[in-house]
């Protein structure tokens, strides 16, 4: 009987190990080919041997990216756009959420309701109108035009997210500060913001990551190749006409590495706020 149990146990362990290994291989499969592609000579994926690194090793693609393509520009543009979008989002969403959470005013309920309905639409449903508005205010082919679009598009949802979190902060805290003579801005700045830090960190991450991989709006707003962003540039390597997989892989690898490191570090915190944000409400 005991022996049988042991056998069952070993069998289960092996089964589990096999199961995990199969899934891990599936997960790693495409990622391995990014690394392989980045260091393999030649251009197209067709010329690549299916056995990793069997067709040789080269650093040419990285040299190409930095000397003969606009990659450094794309990277700098994207970083610039992401940082400003992130900063703007943090400010606009947190201060509006504070007002919605702490003040009573006319039209508050209809405003909150419309925020909720607006957030279900991807902003590109109103693409033509955004294009025309940017055209009229001179925002086409500029980075600030794109930043405005990003900022506005996510604001309805972000306000809700932060407001729900702020609702859970006891009102007695800011009332005490108000009685001590602190202004509304002071209460917002030195009492509410520090307590709301977890949700703001979450907001920082999501609003920073967004612009790196958006395709539609950069495509619509930015014309000059040197103005473009990473997603646009990398996508242009692997269109129907252009099959430049190896250069694409090299560029992709350079972005993926910091993202992987970052997400591995922040993973735990992200899950807590991720779940907390939606479950709490």
């Amino acid at each position, binding site marked *: 009987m005991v022996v049988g149990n042991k056998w069952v146990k070993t069998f289960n362990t092996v089964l589990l190990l096999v199961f995990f290994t199969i899934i891990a291989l599936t997960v790693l499969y495409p990622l391995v080919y990014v690394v392989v592609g980045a260091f393999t000579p030649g251009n197209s994926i067709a010329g690549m041997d299916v056995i990793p690194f069997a067709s040789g090793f080269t650093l040419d693609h990285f040299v190409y990216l930095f000397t003969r393509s606009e990659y450094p520009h794309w990277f700098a543009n994207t970083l610039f756009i992401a940082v400003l979008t992130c900063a703007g989002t943090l400010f606009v969403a947190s201060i509006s959420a504070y007002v919605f959470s702490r003040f009573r005013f006319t039209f508050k309920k209809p405003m909150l309701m419309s925020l909720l309905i607006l957030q279900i639409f991807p902003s590109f449903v109103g693409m033509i109108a955004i294009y025309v508005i940017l055209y009229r205010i001179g925002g086409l082919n500029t980075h600030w035009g794109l930043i405005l679009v990003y900022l506005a598009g996510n604001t309805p949802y972000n306000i809700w997210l932060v407001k729900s979190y702020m609702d859970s902060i006891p009102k007695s805290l800011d009332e005490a500060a108000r009685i001590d003579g602190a202004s509304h801005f002071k209460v917002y700045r030195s009492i509410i913001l520090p307590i709301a830090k977890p949700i703001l960190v979450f907001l920082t991450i999501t609003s920073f990551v967004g612009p790196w991989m958006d395709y539609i709006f950069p495509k619509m707003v930015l014309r000059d190749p040197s103005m473009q962003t990473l997603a646009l540039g990398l996508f242009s390597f692997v269109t129907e006409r252009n099959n430049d997989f190896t250069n694409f892989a090299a560029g992709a690898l350079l972005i993926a590495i910091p993202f*992987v490191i970052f997400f591995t570090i922040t993973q735990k915190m992200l899950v807590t706020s991720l779940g907390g944000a939606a479950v709490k409400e």
Partner: protein
Amino acid sequence: MSGAGTIAAPGGIETLPDKQRVFILSLVFMGLAHLTLLKQYVKGALFALCELVFICFLPAIVGKISDLITLGTPTPELLITQRDNSVFMLIDGIMILAVIAVFAALYYISARSAKNECRAIYANGKFPPKRSAVQTLTGSAFPVAALTPAFILIVFFVIVPLIFSACVAFTNYSSPDHIPPSNTVDWVGLDNFVFMFGGDNIWSGALFRVTIWTVIWAALATFTCYFGGMAMAVVMRDSKLKVTGLFRAIFILPYAVPAAISLMVWRNLLNGSFGTINQTLMQLGLIKDAIPWLSDPLLAQVMVIIINLWAGFPYFMLLVTGAMTAVPNDCYEAASIDGASKWQVFRHVTLPQVLYQTAPLIIMSFTHNINNFGAIWFLTAGYPAVSDSTLTSARGTDILVSWIYNLTVISLKYNYAAVLAVMIFVALAPFAIMNFRRTKSFKEGAI
């Protein structure tokens, strides 16, 4: 509060404002009641200024509104740059409507404020001291100033574009005959809806096909990722293997790598003619002919869902792991005392608890997937083409939003794209309202 009820104030006798007159004056001109009867000069002046500015621009506003109604008249004899541009007229008209709405709201706010001030004066039996009037103003200036950036952004970059889209659904704004500036656009009533929902067979057929696929896609994408992630989370929690941590780190990778990149890699690996997967299978001798992973309509749909599972399960794995830690340990202990098997524990303890906690996220994920442009675009770009694709620009794996993109960018059928946008709106708004009614602040009547 001791002075309440007495009319006499230390500085002499004050006559309280007549309620009726306050009400009428506040309606006649914004801020008039504040200026004349309520002695709130700063606030009244600000309100009055708003109305004056509005009146100054009234002729321009009327002009823009009439442009919105006509959308311009065709003048083929003029140079293109001098012709009426219907799109600008439409968008300016909508912005003016937004300005009018804001003005109407201000009017309402000012009348209400006059009424409230008046009531407060009656309750105290005297006018508030000067200082507190200034304080009220700075007090109410903060929320107004704080909301202004968000308000402007949302009005001009979210609401106006959405209303514009909705309006375009009722016009004939489309290639080749109605593209400004060379031609004007006209209001056509419900023609586009009639056409899409029951007119031309090919377009209605495409609409039906794409809608069905969008719903199937969203349901399966959510379902597979959720339960895939949950399965991994449960198995990993029960696993006694020492290397579980390593596996967990590997399983998170698809979440960490930007989806656009991993989907573009998959798209190359799965390519029918030169993709690595087909080459590998052929060299191993498992297949003779290339498998058309992304060029056979049905197979492409299956692949879209499978690859989405690859990209999406880690998110739910992390989420369920988090949710499981919130399940009280007592539940597990009680279950093990009762001699429950692993499966029974999962079925009767873990599953209901986790489901209850994450239900809102499942709904959110479903609505997100309905609009998940990226998941389709970076993997298949909507391809492969099917029989009606040349005419309708809806390909085999296109969902409604990617079809909207095609209609807007490739075939310039803005009117049909707008019909689809309205359709998505009507279908998704109930979800949003349901989520809203579920929130704590709504239930507690706090707003």
